[in-house]
């Protein structure tokens, strides 16, 4: 500041606030930051808000979680319950479960905070999932955002880890049986499984160490990693600027939207309170994880309808779908005197492995097939990338089949069908569901593209039937204004890229594979309408057209 004051008279703030602000600014350089970010433009679309929902859920998780740590005691020592909940009075239980009950029944607002925390956790993972679906289906993972897509995927895994470690903490019967399943899955790992199990539980299951260890992971390690990943994620969002949907005035060289200050900051800031308010409503009126129903963990009892929280459900469902015996042949095999539990290993690792591997690699797969090295800041409408959309839907349906399988017993009781039949059906869908989803989605996307062409070229159907003098009935079509039309025609439709020889004049096998995939991707395509086609369409003799829409929309 003193350096600047030699050239021009030093700025002297007049008000108290002004002096304070100036003091801080002169020491941290806030003016520069504000100048950079104060009017930064953010595009506005409802589907862009899910990342924010996840971020805000995380903030609410930190707030409510901190409150809970003041009362929770992760000890597995034995005690006898002496709190207010009569149906558990005098029951032997762990200190962890006891303190969870105290939070629920004897700490004012404790139950509310527990329910806010748990609902926020479910919403956290759900909003990450929807956010990723949005990013996938709109092609927002393309250059330059591939790495941020990976960071997002890591965040999803971390969110699931945070959720699972937290789910187990109250040491109730439900989560205890969940841990038991985890223990069983770990033991099935070849060579090191038994050791990992003993190291995790500090000896035999359930031991007296696991809750304390999960607690440390849940409140320290996993949230710290999540925080780190969020910082990375947002840093890259700032570097890349936000993507935008295609439309008039929007292209890969600009970003159209509202400036951060004041509109976008107000909307985004206000939205935090809205998310908090919705979670508070859910926590106030809807029970979640009623641990008092389940009772303390004891290896003998189990409750019907023992399921994990929704985000682990697909793994549990895969475990349920896998047959353990085929006729008299056991899927579990003993080779060289050692046990290979394929009936546990395969469903626990393979579907999740495939889903996450394909998810992480997808940006590079598509990049390789299309040879597209350009930056993409304008999103694809899902219908305009039919094969990608179909791949995404196939994966989504596959996930949903496994997810549904985790509730097979509830499907059976609530729809009055046989539990076994539900499993048989879901096993079938596990195989053919993704294939059907792929074909149907691709056809639907192509059909929607054709509909877009139709509307772009011939206008919107008005529902007005007119009889021409020579007796023919026609429906009057209203042409679109140029802005609306551009929405329907302003997209790229990549074509098949045939195999090309490399610098040695050889078409490599890898290049042939790429060309094959390129054909599979882009063989079926609907090209955007062109001005020439529009010209031709108008020549078709739609004499009776309504007044152009421009006239209406420009009347202000």
């Amino acid at each position: 500041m003193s350096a600047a004051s030699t050239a021009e008279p030093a700025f002297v703030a007049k008000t108290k606030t002004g002096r304070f602000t100036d003091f801080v600014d002169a020491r941290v350089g806030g003016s520069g930051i504000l100048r950079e970010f104060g009017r930064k433009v953010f595009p506005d679309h409802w589907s862009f808000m899910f990342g924010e929902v996840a971020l805000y859920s995380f903030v609410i998780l930190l707030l409510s979680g901190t409150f809970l740590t003041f009362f929770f005691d992760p000890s597995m020592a034995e005690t006898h319950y002496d709190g207010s909940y009569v149906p558990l009075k005098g029951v032997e239980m762990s200190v962890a479960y006891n303190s969870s009950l105290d939070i629920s029944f004897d700490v004012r607002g404790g139950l509310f905070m527990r329910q806010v925390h748990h609902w926020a956790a479910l919403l956290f993972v759900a909003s990450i999932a929807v956010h990723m679906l949005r990013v996938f289906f709109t092609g927002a993972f393309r250059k330059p955002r591939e790495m941020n897509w990976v960071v997002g995927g890591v965040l999803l895994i971390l969110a699931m880890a945070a959720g699972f470690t937290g789910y187990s903490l109250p040491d109730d019967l439900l989560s205890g049986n969940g841990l038991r399943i985890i223990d069983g899955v770990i033991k099935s790992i070849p060579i090191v499984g038994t050791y990992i199990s003993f190291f995790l539980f500090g000896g035999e299951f359930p031991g007296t160490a696991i809750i304390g260890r999960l607690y440390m992971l849940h409140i320290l390690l996993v949230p710290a990693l999540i925080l780190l990943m969020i910082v990375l994620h947002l840093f890259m969002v700032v570097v890349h600027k936000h993507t935008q949907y295609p439309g008039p005035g929007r292209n890969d060289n600009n970003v159209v939207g509202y400036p951060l200050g004041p509109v976008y900051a107000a909307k985004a800031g206000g939205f935090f309170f809205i998310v908090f308010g919705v979670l508070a409503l859910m926590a106030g009126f809807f029970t979640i994880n009623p641990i008092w129903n389940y009772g303390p963990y004891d290896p003998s009892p189990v409750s019907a309808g023992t399921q994990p929280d929704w985000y682990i459900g697909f793994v549990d469902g895969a475990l349920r779908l896998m047959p353990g015996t085929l006729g008299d042949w056991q899927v579990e095999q003993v080779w060289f005197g050692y046990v290979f539990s394929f009936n546990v290993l395969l469903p626990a690792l393979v579907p999740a492995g495939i889903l996450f591997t394909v998810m992480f690699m997808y940006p590079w797969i598509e990049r390789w097939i299309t040879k597209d090295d350009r930056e993409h800041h304008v999103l694809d409408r899902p219908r305009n990338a039919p094969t990608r959309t179909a791949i995404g839907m196939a994966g989504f349906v596959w996930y949903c089949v496994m997810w549904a399988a985790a509730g097979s017993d509830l499907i059976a009781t609530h729809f009055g069908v046989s539990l076994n039949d539900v499993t048989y059906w879901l096993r079938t869908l596990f195989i053919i569901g993704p294939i059907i989803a792929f074909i149907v989605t691709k056809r639907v996307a192509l059909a929607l593209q054709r509909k877009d062409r139709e509307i772009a070229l011939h206008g919107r159907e008005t529902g007005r039937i007119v009889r021409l003098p020579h007796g023919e009935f026609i429906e009057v079509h209203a042409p679109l204004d140029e802005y609306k039309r551009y929405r329907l025609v302003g997209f790229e439709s990549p074509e098949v890229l045939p195999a090309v020889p490399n610098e040695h004049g050889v078409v490599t096998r890898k290049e042939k594979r790429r060309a094959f995939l390129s054909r599979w991707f882009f063989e079926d395509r609907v090209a955007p309408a062109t001005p020439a086609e529009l010209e031709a369409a108008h020549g078709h003799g739609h004499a009776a057209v309504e007044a152009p829409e421009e006239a209406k929309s420009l009347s202000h």
Partner: protein
Amino acid sequence: MKALSQKRRHPLAAIALLLMGLLITGGLYAVATTVNEAKASTSTFSANDVEEGGKLFAANCATCHGMGGSGSQDGPSLVGVGAASVDFQVGTGRMPMQMNGPQALEKPVQFNDQQTHQLAAYVASLGAGPAIPEQSLLEGGDAAAGGELFRTNCAMCHNAAAAGGALTRGKFAPALADTSGKHIYEAMVTGPQNMPVFSDSNITPEGKRDIITFLKQIETNGSPGGAELGSLGPVAEGLFVWIAGLGVIIAFTIWLTSRTS
């Protein structure tokens, strides 16, 4: 004491002792095995009840269960199932069965209380079996002890919050919320359909009373956290957060990003 020890040396003492031992073990065994039947007295049933019940039985039940309740290929023998079984099956509408299926379903009750009573009287007269429990066995137990018994013996089928659950091949364990204490007790002692029998030697009558007390208490308590979403656990919670939670939030995001007119 002295007199007794002297007599013990009497040659007949060994035989007497043997006899006494046999009598006591046999007696205890008899008590143990007939512990259920002990209350199966037909004293509350009049001869008229039995007679009327016999007529009702012949008209409504004998098609499947055979004349005299001896059973047929369509229905099991009812000799020795006891009044409790009839009171449960008929009193909850499971019997008479509408059609053969994986299990008899609860339906609107077909017989009035008096007719059910008469049917029970008739079937109880065919052979001793568990009796209809007295009111004192249905309330005033220890809910916490009942909770422990419930979780160990019942929750795996009926769910920890008694919301019901699936069994194999279309069978299921029903939710217990609207079931009367009497019917719960009767189900435990008779083991209807695929439910195992929990005789008094397995769960004592006091234990059964504790279980019923526990169930009634959690039913009247409701959840302190608000609506229970069917007490179905994480599946219901997951569906709720996806449909209602995200639904409301999406509605807000659409409002938030739409232009004001």
